[in-house]
């Protein structure tokens, strides 16, 4: 029972928050190193918390996907908490469903990563007008399409069959989300820009590498995200 309790979301997020708060102080950081956190792939690299290194291998890839799920969950949480007044009937319920799915995905990756999971992040959503349906749905489309392209690019980088199988279970749900948001915005052109239209890969979904995804989302992150340790092939 104590094992279960210590893995509860509340307990873990409190630990992470306090870790991040003290990470700015050299003395405290040294203490954490002595306490055995030296292998933590997400330890801050400076006395100021300015970078988040996602790490290497399958663990780094899971932290990469966790980052995207955190971003989506935080976004929809904000939408659901203060919804635009011009949302149409039924849309808030659907966006709440998306929030719930993203929270499940986020907690799933946290549980899979255990003590290797990144801290809770406060994202910068200042470019989104949360009182406008159009602004919120445009942002949702960006996040969902980016997520699908990210999963398309990340799958081949995993070495564990078990983890790949689990990740692929989420990838198609993100594609369903993306299609749902697009049907709200552009029902007559649901696939424009996200399915290759010509060439050898015509008919395949668009794909982005981790550096491309991080670059596309950089304005939402409060600090530099380092993905150079992730596998590239």
């Amino acid at each position: 029972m104590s094992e279960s309790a210590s893995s509860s979301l509340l307990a873990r997020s409190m630990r992470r928050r306090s870790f991040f708060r003290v990470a700015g102080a050299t003395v405290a950081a040294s203490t954490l190193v002595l306490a055995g956190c030296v292998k933590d792939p997400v330890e801050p690299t400076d006395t100021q918390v300015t970078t988040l290194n996602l790490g290497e291998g399958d663990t780094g890839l899971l932290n990469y996907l966790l980052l995207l799920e955190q971003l989506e969950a935080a976004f929809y949480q904000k939408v659901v908490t203060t919804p635009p007044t011009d949302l149409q009937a039924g849309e808030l319920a659907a966006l709440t469903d998306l929030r719930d799915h993203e929270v499940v995905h986020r907690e799933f990756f946290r549980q899979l990563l255990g003590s290797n999971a990144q801290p809770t992040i406060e994202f910068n959503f200042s470019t989104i007008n949360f009182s406008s349906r159009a602004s919120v749905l445009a942002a949702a489309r960006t996040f969902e399409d980016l997520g699908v392209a990210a999963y398309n690019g990340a799958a081949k980088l995993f070495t564990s069959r078990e983890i790949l199988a689990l990740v692929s279970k989420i990838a198609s749900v993100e594609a369903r989300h993306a299609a749902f948001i697009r049907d709200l915005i552009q029902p007559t052109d649901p696939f424009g820009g996200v399915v290759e239209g010509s060439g050898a890969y015509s008919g395949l979904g668009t794909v982005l590498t981790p550096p491309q995804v991080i670059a596309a989302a950089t304005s939402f992150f409060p600090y530099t995200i380092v993905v150079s340790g992730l596998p590239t092939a």
Partner: protein
Amino acid sequence: MNILQLLADLDAVDPEAYQRLSGRRGALTGLGQAGRRAVAAAVPLAFGTMLTKAYGRRPNTVLDVFTLALTLEYLESEFYKQALASTLAFPGNSKAVFQQIYKHEQDHVAFLEQTLRLSGAVLPDKPRFDFTGSKNGTQAALFPTVFQDFGTFLKVAQLLEDTGVRAYKGQVGTLITDNDLLEAAVRIHAVEARHAAHIRGLRRALGANVRDWVSPADEVITTKGVTDAVYAGEELTRQQLPVVDQKIPFFPTETTQIVTSTPAKAQISLGEAFDEPMSDVTASAIAALFIYG
């Protein structure tokens, strides 16, 4: 020479040798299919002994995966082709979108055919399809009005697309040995999921109780013992985790705080948040409902 089979057999006996030849860790990345073929052509000389051993065992291979995928893409492509050529009335702008979906399926067929051809494999015969499910009139039809009634057409489309998503997902473990082919399959898988979601949205607009994602709360459109395999096992709300120490073997644990909604709603969300894989055997059986001769 069947190169995909060759590579798969090689992987079975000596994964390290296979990885030197395949694109798994970048050896062939960027070279594409032609490069793969050129390198694989050298395989028998270098690994003759190993292959002799390999042919003694035939697990589910990359070739099997692409052959199954091609059958399913033939099925979907032919389904939309027949629908678009029929007298079926497509409301609003839906016909233009189904023309796009049909083109995607044609592209998938072309991609898979090309990959198999370049590997030296013999392409499977394109089956004969009857989308009413009557096996060309030899038995009672499952969907007699599939190309007359838009609602029935959408139901069959949903069943086929959701099957496609689950079938590709069931094969990623086999494809992990090859970066290029895995990525291609995952990218097709995502397009099928977009198709499935769009079709589900069209059904909802017609009044069906259905979501864009597979939900335990969706109204049932399958027949027990016939089409229910399409969603069998999708209701899973707990995921097995590959942890070494077995301390937290599944998600969620009793204490995982996942959703701020009610516990009942959280259970539904857990079912919706993960699409489950389908075995090749099940996918073939579902495809067989629409194949005759």
